[in-house]
């Protein structure tokens, strides 16, 4: 990844936000230090859902406009989104262990994240299994759109499952009213991760362009 003004500022923003999380944000009263994972967890989740939203959008637009750039955007966003979703799935249990007393719990949102992670993994495997560029673009666009349609159904069934089978919850890991200092930290983290996402997306997009150009040059 080439150092660009965007990538440098993204890295700097993440560093500054992390420093603020660790040193300049007070401990949460009941959860203590573990709660600081929340800033990373929530911001990665935001970015991951944003990334998958973009995959769905770019997929739909691709089938309509047949513009190769849209397929590359979907490809780049899926791959970057997978990284952020992996962070969600690792940070969630790490945060949950001291709070819930267990690494994994079938919390509705965590479950949805897990299935999204599987879907996006399948999406990337599908891309890897097709050589023809136009066909790969069409097939992954179809999957991208269907996955976008699937998400509300997974969410709803997991949610219904949870409501009908109440599980003991010690501390609900959402923070509806954060003290302002924590809120500022959270917003900084959101902005920093979003910047990082955009920087990675652009780098990954350029890689896709370079790869396709190299293939053309090789055959010409």
């Amino acid at each position, binding site marked *: 990844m080439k150092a660009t003004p965007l990538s440098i500022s993204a890295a700097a923003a993440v560093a500054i936000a992390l420093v603020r999380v660790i040193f300049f944000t007070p401990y949460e009263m009941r959860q203590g230090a573990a709660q600081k994972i929340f800033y990373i967890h929530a911001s990665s989740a935001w970015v991951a859902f944003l990334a998958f939203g973009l995959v769905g959008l770019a997929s739909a637009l691709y*089938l309509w406009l047949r513009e190769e750039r849209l397929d590359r955007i979907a490809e780049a966003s899926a791959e970057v989104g997978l990284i952020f979703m992996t962070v969600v799935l690792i940070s969630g249990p790490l945060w949950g262990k001291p709070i819930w007393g267990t690494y994994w719990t079938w919390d509705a949102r965590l479950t949805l994240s897990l*299935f999204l992670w*599987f*879907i996006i*993994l*399948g999406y990337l*495997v*599908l891309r890897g*299994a*097709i*050589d023809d560029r*136009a*066909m790969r673009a*069409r*097939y992954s*666009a*179809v*999957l991208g*759109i*269907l*996955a976008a*349609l*699937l998400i509300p*159904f*997974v969410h*709803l*069934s*997991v949610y*219904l*499952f949870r409501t*009908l089978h109440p599980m003991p919850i010690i501390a609900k890991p959402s923070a509806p009213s954060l003290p302002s200092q924590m809120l500022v930290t959270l917003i900084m983290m959101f902005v920093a991760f979003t910047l990082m996402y955009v920087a990675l997306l652009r780098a990954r997009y350029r890689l896709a362009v370079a790869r396709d150009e190299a293939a053309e040059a090789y055959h010409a």
Partner: protein
Amino acid sequence: MTELVHDAWVIAVKDLTIEFRTRSAFLSAVVFALLAIVIFYFAWDPTAVAAGDLAPGVLWVVFTFSGLLGLHRSFGIEHEERAIDGLVASPILRESIFLGKAIANLVFVIAVQAIAIPAIALFYNLDFGAASLPIAGVAILAAIGVVTVGTLFSAMASNTRLAELLLPMLSLPFFVPIVLPAAQATAKLLSGRPAIEAMSWLKLLVAFDLVFVVACTLAYPFTLEE
């Protein structure tokens, strides 16, 4: 619309004739389902867990996996001698190819279920009683969802390098909102609760079927060679 249905039916009859003549996929799916039902029984401690609590989960897990077995063949027969070219070049709508395949697969999956569900009742000592009909209804709703999504992904997977390896990977996440409601509704019905209590689950199944029958039918033409 009538043409769509007519052509889909012609294709479904053709597929079912082929399946009836070779019976290879049907037999392996039935044997697989029976084996899975038997093996699942020994995966739990029967003194700790009642067979009746186990049955709904086993039923729907077996159902999805055995369904997948038949789906892969669906487009395999079209690719052997490029018969799919003959379909695409003919005057029929491309959507009717998908619907025809899906109808044939639906008959296939329901036929497998018609053996697997009574087998569960037998091996797990269940008495469906009054719940028989509602459970059959749940089974059909679930089969429609599984077959619709599975047929589309089978069309896609059969054109990729990974072929049958890809099908479960793509399909299974889509089966979550089918298996989960179906198993929950079955459990409610088996425990003798009135059918009305399973309603919210059934609504979810119906909504899934409606959305994905439309979406997959419209998406299918994009999976053809262009």
